């Protein structure tokens, strides 16, 4: 039987704010445990929440970038449950009135672009981090109270590739807007994927399983495809799918059951009494929306229009915002977009990877990269020589000076080259005979001889032209 999978994704994303959602303690990562907390984050008796409006601003940006309708009346609710990582015994969230509703992102699929609908975005606070040891559990409250948005998709995806593309599209938008640093490996972006399968065309939904613990986007695709196959195998062998929470095991590439879900938990949601509903000023919202950083899809369109780059180049360039930002800086000095793009995605990225550095913290100057591309374009050095200059370039050196230092500046001066060509032709009468007999490769041989005579400095393009001209005169 053919099955169809239905996939919905919930994403928790930490917002990049200086302080926490409801307290003045700093948002940090990697700091010594329990040093970025105050009495509010610890749920001490008598503490009260105070809403971080910067978090609201970031949430509005996220909603706008993902085409959701914004509710200008901000309300919060309590989600009540007991857990050791939840200091107040409830989480402040937006159950009844999410800040955004009904949006979408466009993803690329094998069959072209497709809209994946987003049901809602709501704001809430993060919990503490737990470390379970053999005989004890350690708690770090630094994360407690960090602002989160939860993004809930509609069940619009059907395979691992689409799930992956959806998360990538969200990540790209949220990252470009500066809403979040979206680091899955650090947990600032966390995905819960719900998957069910049912016979194709049945119009029914199967029992869904939730997969957690995927620390990279590529793992999402792997996990989803594994899970679809697992469910298929169970059903084909006459088995039954139970509602479970599973985690992705990176080593084995499989999903492993964490717990079976029995019934639903009653979180006893009710409106948070310590935060009155807040009516957002429409002018404030508009101001945020008018001053948002450029969205990736807008940048894509602009690169195509302004630089005439191919869709493929654009998508790779834009996937890394810092590289893309750098590209634009180089383009202030260059008119060869394709050349700059190739350099950035090729040798520059390669060098950065080898040195485990990123474009924002290396000393490469945009004008130097532009200069190098121009030197090649002008034929002052050849491609092979340019590659030899990458280390100098990446260490902040001016490529012109570096080329001179290495004695590799090409000779393009026609007068000097013509003299060299004439003497090479004089020395190789046989090659001239061959050329006249129709053997085109004689030209290649002669170019090689000139290059040799110039110790590699001659501009091969110019040499080629000059040889053809001189041959006509013989």
């Amino acid at each position, binding site marked *: 039987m053919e099955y169809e999978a239905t996939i919905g994704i919930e994403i928790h994303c930490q917002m990049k704010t200086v302080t926490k959602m409801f307290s003045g303690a700093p948002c940090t990562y990697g700091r010594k445990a329990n040093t970025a907390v105050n009495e509010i984050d*610890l749920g*001490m008796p*008598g503490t*009260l929440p*105070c809403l971080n409006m910067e978090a609201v601003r970031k949430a509005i940006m996220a909603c706008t970038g993902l085409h959701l309708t914004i509710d200008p009346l901000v309300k919060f609710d309590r989600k*009540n449950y007991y857990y050791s990582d939840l200091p*107040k015994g409830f989480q402040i969230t937006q159950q009844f009135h999410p800040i955004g509703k009904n949006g979408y992102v466009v993803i690329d699929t094998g069959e072209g672009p497709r809209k994946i609908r987003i049901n809602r975005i709501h704001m809430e606070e993060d919990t503490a981090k737990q470390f379970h040891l053999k005989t004890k559990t350690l708690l770090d409250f630094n994360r407690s109270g960090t602002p989160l948005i939860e993004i809930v998709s509609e069940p619009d995806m059907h395979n691992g590739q689409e799930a992956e593309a959806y998360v990538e599209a969200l990540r790209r938008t949220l990252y470009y807007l500066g809403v979040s640093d979206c680091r899955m490996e650090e947990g600032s972006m966390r995905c819960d994927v719900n998957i069910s399968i049912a016979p194709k065309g049945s119009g029914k939904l199967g029992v869904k399983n939730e997969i957690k613990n995927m620390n990279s986007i590529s793992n999402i695709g792997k996990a989803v495809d594994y899970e679809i196959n697992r469910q298929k195998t169970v059903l084909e062998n006459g088995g039954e799918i139970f509602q479970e929470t599973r985690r992705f095991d990176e080593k084995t590439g499989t999903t492993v059951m964490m717990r079976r879900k029995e019934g639903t938990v009653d979180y*006893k949601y*009710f409106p948070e*009494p310590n935060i009155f509903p807040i009516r957002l000023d429409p002018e404030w919202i508009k101001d945020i929306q008018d001053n948002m950083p450029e969205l990736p899809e807008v940048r894509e369109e602009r690169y195509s229009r302004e630089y005439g780059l191919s869709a493929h180049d654009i998508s790779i360039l834009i996937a890394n915002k810092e590289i893309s930002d750098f590209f634009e800086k180089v383009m202030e000095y260059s008119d060869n977009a394709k050349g700059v793009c190739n350099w950035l995605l090729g040798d520059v990225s390669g060098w950065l990877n080898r040195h485990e550095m990123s474009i924002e913290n290396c000393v490469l100057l945009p004008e130097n990269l532009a200069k190098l591309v121009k030197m090649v374009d002008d034929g002052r050095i050849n491609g092979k020589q340019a590659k030899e200059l990458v280390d100098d370039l990446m260490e902040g050196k001016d490529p012109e000076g570096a080329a001179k230092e290495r004695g590799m500046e090409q000779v393009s001066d026609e007068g000097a080259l013509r003299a060299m060509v004439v003497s090479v032709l004089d020395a190789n009468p046989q090659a001239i005979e061959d050329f006249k007999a129709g053997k085109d490769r004689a030209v290649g041989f002669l170019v090689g001889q000139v290059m040799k005579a110039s110790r590699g400095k001659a501009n091969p393009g110019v040499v080629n032209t000059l040889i053809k001209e001189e041959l006509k005169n013989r």
Partner: protein
Amino acid sequence: MIKELREDRGNVEKNVRGAYEEAQRLQEKLNAVVTFADIDTQLKELPEDGLMRGVPIALKDNVSTKGLRTTAESNILWNYVPVFNAHIVDKLKAAGAVVIAKTNMDELAMGGTNLSAYSGPTHNPYDLARMTGGSSGGSAALVAAGVVPMAIGSDTGDSVRKPAAFCGIVGVKPTYGRISRYGILPYASSLDHVGYFTRSIEDACIALQVLAGRDDRDMTSSFREVPDYSAELNSDMHGKKIAVLGNVVRNLKNPQTIAAFNHVMDELKARGAQVDVYDFDEDLMKAILPAYYLIANCEATSNHSNLDGIRFGNVQKGETMEELMKNTRTNGFGPLIKKRFVIGSYGLFEENQERLFRKAQKVRRKIVDAMKDCLKEYDAVMAPASDNPAPYLDDNSADELSANYLIVENYMAMGNFSGYPSMTVPMGFADDLPLGLNMTCRPFEETTMFDFGKAIEEITGSKDMKAEVE
């Protein structure tokens, strides 16, 4: 008293130490104190000036005090020492007040008798066999006994105004948002108010001057400017309109209470006030208590979910985190608290919430609308704070379904539903025990409320009245 103490600059230490020693002397009789504070350090750190400089005060034990144990009279917090001060503690200290003690209360402020305190009940200074009322009983007792001129309480249903009546003192619950709640251990956030006791209206004015004002840590606290309450105090009753709460007055039984109340009303009329009987819908009045009970317990069960033994408090051991939390809570709460948590949880369950918690909110709105209508026409709503004076400690004769109980003994939660300013003042005696009169005014019109209070104080001669404890 506050002004006199403030101006007695040469005797600050004597006055503070005197109050401290008096509280210690009375402790065996009143059991009003949970923890005595370190007055020496405070005396050393006294600011040069302040509206309450050198004035000894007491704080209900649900007010967070940095470095000073704060138990809220619950076993679960018996060893809890806060790492921060409540907003009002900082304000009081900046004004020069000296905290001498943390006072007894009903466990977690849930109760109206002060009988549910982990360390046992507080005794009424007028008759040690009687209760103070609650939940702010310890603070009321210390003020009534003349130990301190002012003590902080909290008021979620009538927890300041009822003990004020039973102890013959002034009990103020200002408008919701007038005083920051930051650092006050909560009961029910939407109903909780910081309140206080004094023995005169003048002191009540000074105290509110110190306590009121915006605090950015409490989003529900008001940005409104704080008026100069003392300067605006004016007991002229000409043109003032008073609504007597007919539903309460009609259900009174105690002839001494009726007589005392009528006497005050007659005198207010004689001073130029217009006094009319005003009736609310009787069914609505009977719904106050059940609606209050639901809202308060629903919010309370959530508010106290942080008391799990993980980060602070009287932790009990367990094999797992879940077990540790369960053991801590089972051991830490008294039976009445557990009952309230069960009721609160029940009211919040998804299948019950609409017909219980949400319905109670609708009732609350209706009552607030009715109050708004009434106060469009009148400057204050008045009624006795209770039918009878303070009951005996072992009294459990209340008929919980009678109109007398449902309305007369519990109508003051109206002030918490609406957040309107409400105050109880002494209005006379029944069998040598004090009686209280309650009034509620329009939001942020504490000045009007104090004007009425001042007039009544002049009528009854209750200024600075105190109980002699033998």
